């Protein structure tokens, strides 16, 4: 198990514009590290740089204790799973799995036992003599996975390995990959554009946008304390609602989209440096207004779209020019055009500076989540 360290790593193709810049991160041994971002953000390029398939144009990459900038891919102690699996079409499943072992001069007998073990672990034992084209998508995916773990490399890289599978299989493979990683204790670097995969699989995740790190941290920390509006809207489904707001220091309230006023504590209004802010709130933090709701926090909105999902109900409404969404537990038989009383509390708001995009305040009241140990009391 080895660590991977990136120091000031950057990448440019034409020596002018950097597609990846200033990446500093330490990936700990045995960690499941997820790189996530929208397409074109440079996450695959970064992975390929770690793999040695793409040249590093600036900075230092360390694998283990060694500098690895100029090591060929085969000397980096890695294995890799590709998005399209990259199985050799002319070889059987077994030959595909042991393909790399042959090169590493591992004796024939050991190759066979290792192949058998891995195949058993992934439920491929029956298919060892088939060709890749005779397998289903999920089975091919497993073969690719088997090939990656059979050579017992301490680091495994995965480039969107689940994006070609259907939703159900994807959810299944997610937990399977996670379990295998835990069992073998390998360091995993996993690229995906799917924030659900990132949230559910990663020990830590890194969010990339335009080749720059937006935030690195534990999934739940990122969810609760997004560093900037991009992260806030990228992580979470439906995304965090965002709108421009103006601080009114005198009345100690924030005006969101010209109509909605939210009271803020006086001491907080003094701390705020800027008046131009971005206001964000998670859809699940917008609640139905009850009789106890104070008049200032209550507002009435018109539903413009309603999705009833069985266990939860999502409806959207307009705030200024933005369309916001609210998520309520259970089934609410709402109709388009209904006037719905809602409440938004200052505690569940996220505030960002509109100029610097930095977070001023994150949601402090994360209601129904009982934090850490309290749950056992």
């Amino acid at each position: 198990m080895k660590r991977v360290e990136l120091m000031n790593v950057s990448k440019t193709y034409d020596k002018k514009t950097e597609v990846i810049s200033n990446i500093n991160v330490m990936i700990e041994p045995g960690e499941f590290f997820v790189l996530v971002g929208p397409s074109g953000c440079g996450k695959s390029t970064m992975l390929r740089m770690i793999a040695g398939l793409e040249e590093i144009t600036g900075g230092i990459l360390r694998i283990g204790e060694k500098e690895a900038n100029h090591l060929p891919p085969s000397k980096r102690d890695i294995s890799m799973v590709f998005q399209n699996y990259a199985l050799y079409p002319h070889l059987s499943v077994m030959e595909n799995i042991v393909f790399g072992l042959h090169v590493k001069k591992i004796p024939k007998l050991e190759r066979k036992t290792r192949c058998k073990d891995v195949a058993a672990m992934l439920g491929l034992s029956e298919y060892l003599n088939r060709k890749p084209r005779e397998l289903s998508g999920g089975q091919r995916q497993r073969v690719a996975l088997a090939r990656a773990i059979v050579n017992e490399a301490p680091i495994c890289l995965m480039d969107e390995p689940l994006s070609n599978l259907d939703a159900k299989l994807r959810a299944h493979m997610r937990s399977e990959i996670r379990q295998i990683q835990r069992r073998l204790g390998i360091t995993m670097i996993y690229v995906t554009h799917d924030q659900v995969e990132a949230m559910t699989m990663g020990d830590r995740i890194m969010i990339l946008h335009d080749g720059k790190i937006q935030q690195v941290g534990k999934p739940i920390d990122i969810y609760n304390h997004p560093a900037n509006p991009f992260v806030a809207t990228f992580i979470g489904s439906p995304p965090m609602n965002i709108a421009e707001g103006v601080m009114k220091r005198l009345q100690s309230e924030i005006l969101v989209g010209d109509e909605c006023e939210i009271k803020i504590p006086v001491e907080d209004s003094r701390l705020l440096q800027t008046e131009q802010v971005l206001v964000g709130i998670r859809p699940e933090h917008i609640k139905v207004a009850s009789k106890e709701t104070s008049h200032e926090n209550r507002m009435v909105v018109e539903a413009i779209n309603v999705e009833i999902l069985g266990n939860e109900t999502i409806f959207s409404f307009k705030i200024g020019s933005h369309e916001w969404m609210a998520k309520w537990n259970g089934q609410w038989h709402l109709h388009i055009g209904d006037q719905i009383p809602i409440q938004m509390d200052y505690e569940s708001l996220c505030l960002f500076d509109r100029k610097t995009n930095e977070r001023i305040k994150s949601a402090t009241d994360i209601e129904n989540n009982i934090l850490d140990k309290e749950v056992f009391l």
Partner: protein
Amino acid sequence: MSFPRKVVFYFLLLFSAFLLFFPVLYAFMISFMTGGEIMQGKFFPQTFTLDNYFRVFERLPLMKYLMNSFVVSTGVMMGQLIVCSMAAYVFVFIPFKGRDLVFFLFISTMMIPWEATMIPNFFTIQKLDWTNTYQGLTVPFFALAFGTFLLRQHFKTIPKELFEASQIAGLSRFAFFWRVILPVSKTSLVTLGAYGFLTTWNMYLWPLLVTNNDQVRTVQIGLKQLQSQEVATEWGVVMAGVIVVIIPTLLLLFIGQKQLQKGLTQGALK
């Protein structure tokens, strides 16, 4: 398709097939005729005699010629496969500065008719003292722009990830070529091989230039010899020779037809 339409289509197909095949068919018939029958312009021989076939083997060292042709064609085929597949591999998988330029230069040689390069080639062979040798007959055809192009097109359809996966596994470039690329592009290799074999088998001008005795002479020249040996050509004998010579060609076509079609269209569509 309705029945009358089917009849019309099949009639047209039969007719055009007959039209195309007529010369071969006629040659086949003549090869069984006696001299007199040919002069009368008959289409079907009275009796099927194999005299002409015996005579052609007596008159010429036909077996030797066939053997020579076989050796030369196989040699060219192998040479082309090796050279073209390696060149195509470089053009697809090994990046270097000016690769595209080199490739276009390579491809542009397709526009130069082969006959134009014949004289310089002949001098080269002569200076190397390779006249009347197998290498003189084969080596000039090893580098084939068309073949390189065909294989390059096929190699380009192979996912880059296979190359990257093998890099991570630690395969050398040649090992990847040998263990992955060649087995994966079997169809294209068969296509090119058949094409190379047939072209060389049917070649006439070059063997005529670089051979001047029976040592390595190929069958096509043998056929010509049959024709001009006497004042009055015995067409029955010549046609018997022709039939013997085209048998390998036909066999190859029938066996390889499916592969050939697949390979050629594959390259064309991508």
